[in-house]
Each structure stands twice: as structure tokens, then as C-alpha cells.
């Protein structure tokens, strides 16, 4: 008689089969899908490239900044990049609609440029650094830290020593 209970449950709760592809599929928020990259917070530490298990991430230094490249077709969604990124500039979204036709195989790429900064005092080229790095390094912001942040180490030392940055 156990089947009567199953029959009753089925009538009450509806089919167990998910509607997809004729409707939406439930996706947990924490599902590890397509990688997203936020160039405003990346500090160019290259850690994500270093730990990337699938070799999906490439950084190259160009005139205008660091060029970030990811090929989603070799990303294994392991989440190592997001785990080790100090500023959480790289994350895994829960987007899993990645299937595509063969013609689009090499278009499954995201590219971004992380611009270099320049020392506000002498103009020397600096590694990128966004507001998130500022938060992390100084545990909050104030005008002094903001000023020092955008200087090269030499100018920062001089400014601190002379007291002009106080």
C-alpha cells in the first residue's frame, strides 16, 4: 500500500522533474559557475593566475596597464582564484549557461585592462591598486592614507619624514 502514499504525495506536491529547459532551473547562490572579474579592485598581484588549476587566466604587462584574460573553456570552476584574491576582484558567479556552438569556442573569453597608477608626486608608474586595497591596508580611509597610497615608496618616505603628509 506504500504506493498510495507516493501517489498522494505526487498529487499534492506536483512532479519531481525540474521544468528546465521549458522553465527556469533553481540555482543556489553559492553555485560555482562563470568567473567574473572587476578591474577596479584588482591590485595586479597575479595570485589568481598562479593558483589557477585550469590555466585559464593570463596576465600580460602592456603600456596602458595589466591585461587580464580568461578563457572560460578551460576553467574548472574550482574557486581557487576567488579564494586567494586579496581584494575579491575575481569571483565566481552562479551563471552556468555556458554551452555554445563550436564556432563560438574561442569567443568564450573575457578581457579587461587594469590600469597602472602614477605617483602623484613624481609621476612614476605604480602597480594598480583600487579602493578595496586601501580598505585592507589601512583598515579604513582618511585623507592622509589616501594621499600616501597614491605615491611611490620613495616619495611616500619623503612625505612621511618631512611631515607634509600629516
Amino acid at each position, binding site marked *: 500500500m506504500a504506493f498510495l502514499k507516493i501517489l498522494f504525495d505526487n498529487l499534492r506536491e506536483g512532479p*519531481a*522533474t*525540474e521544468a*528546465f*529547459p521549458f522553465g527556469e*532551473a533553481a540555482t543556489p547562490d553559492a*553555485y560555482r559557475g562563470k568567473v567574473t572579474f572587476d578591474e577596479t579592485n584588482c591590485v595586479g598581484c597575479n595570485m589568481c593566475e598562479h593558483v589557477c*588549476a*585550469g*590555466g585559464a587566466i593570463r596576465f600580460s604587462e602592456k603600456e596602458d596597464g595589466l591585461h587580464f584574460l580568461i*578563457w*572560460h*573553456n*578551460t*576553467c*574548472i*570552476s*574550482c574557486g581557487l582564484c576567488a579564494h586567494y584574491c586579496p581584494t575579491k576582484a575575481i569571483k565566481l558567479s552562479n551563471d*552556468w*549557461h*555556458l*554551452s*555554445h*556552438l*563550436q564556432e563560438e*569556442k574561442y569567443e*568564450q573569453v573575457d578581457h579587461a585592462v587594469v590600469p597602472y597608477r602614477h605617483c602623484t608626486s613624481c609621476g612614476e608608474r605604480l602597480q594598480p591598486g583600487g579602493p578595496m586595497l586601501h580598505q585592507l591596508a589601512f583598515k579604513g580611509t582618511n585623507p592622509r592614507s589616501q594621499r600616501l597610497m597614491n605615491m611611490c615608496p620613495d616619495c611616500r618616505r619623503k612625505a612621511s619624514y618631512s611631515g607634509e603628509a600629516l
Partner: protein
Amino acid sequence: MDFFSKAARKSPWLYRINAGSCNGCDVELATTACIPRYDVERLGCQYCGSPKHADIVLITGPLTARVKDKVLRVYNEIPDPKVTVAVGICPISGGVFRESYAIEGPIDRYLPVDVNVPGCPPRPQAIIEGIAKAIEIWAKRA
């Protein structure tokens, strides 16, 4: 015969080739067919056991050097026209095994691929999405 080809257009048969996969993708392929929650057969297709009966072929794995000839032999057994789906990043790019001495892939060096379903492994819904794309191609080709 006309009746049969019309019916075949609507109900392609799926066939699965493992080209040296870690089994992750194969488990997800079994899931799409065997678990009522996903049930790929709603799309009018079903898995078959012989390459001679197949219309849509799903390939997993990075095409290891050891299995390459066997995979190509089975693939050539499948009658034309057929639609080829690469499931998982292994057949698409080699994935974590890319540039290994033991790998002959990516699979499109040897076979004409039509649809790619990336993921390691892709979730069952993503595989169903890829199969739906393959069925569209199949309807035009059959």
C-alpha cells in the same frame, strides 16, 4: 521511409563515448538520464547502447593517447548525419590535463564538434541545455 525519417527528426538517440574522462562528466550524463529530477527523455531522445543506432554523440574526456584510436573507430561506426557534443572542458580544451604528454586532445583536432558544454563537470541542466542545442542542429541535418 519518409515516415521514419520524419519521426527520427523528432527523436534522436544519444550515444556516449568516454575518451579518457575522469568519470565526473559521465556521472552527470547518467544523472540526466536516470534521475527523474532531470529526465532528458522529455526532449524526445534516449540513450542507446550501440554506435550504429546513434544520432547525437556525447563525448567526455580529453582523448588520451591510449584511447584515441579506439574512440575514432567507434566514432566512425556512427552513421552520418550525426551531431557531436563535447561535454566538459576536457574534450573542449584538455582542461586540467592540457599539454600533458598523455593527451591527444582537444577532441576537435580529430572530430568535427558541433556543440560545446563547458564545466568540470557541467551540471545536469547545462548538459540538457547542450543537448537541446544539439537537437536543434539534428532537426536541420536529419
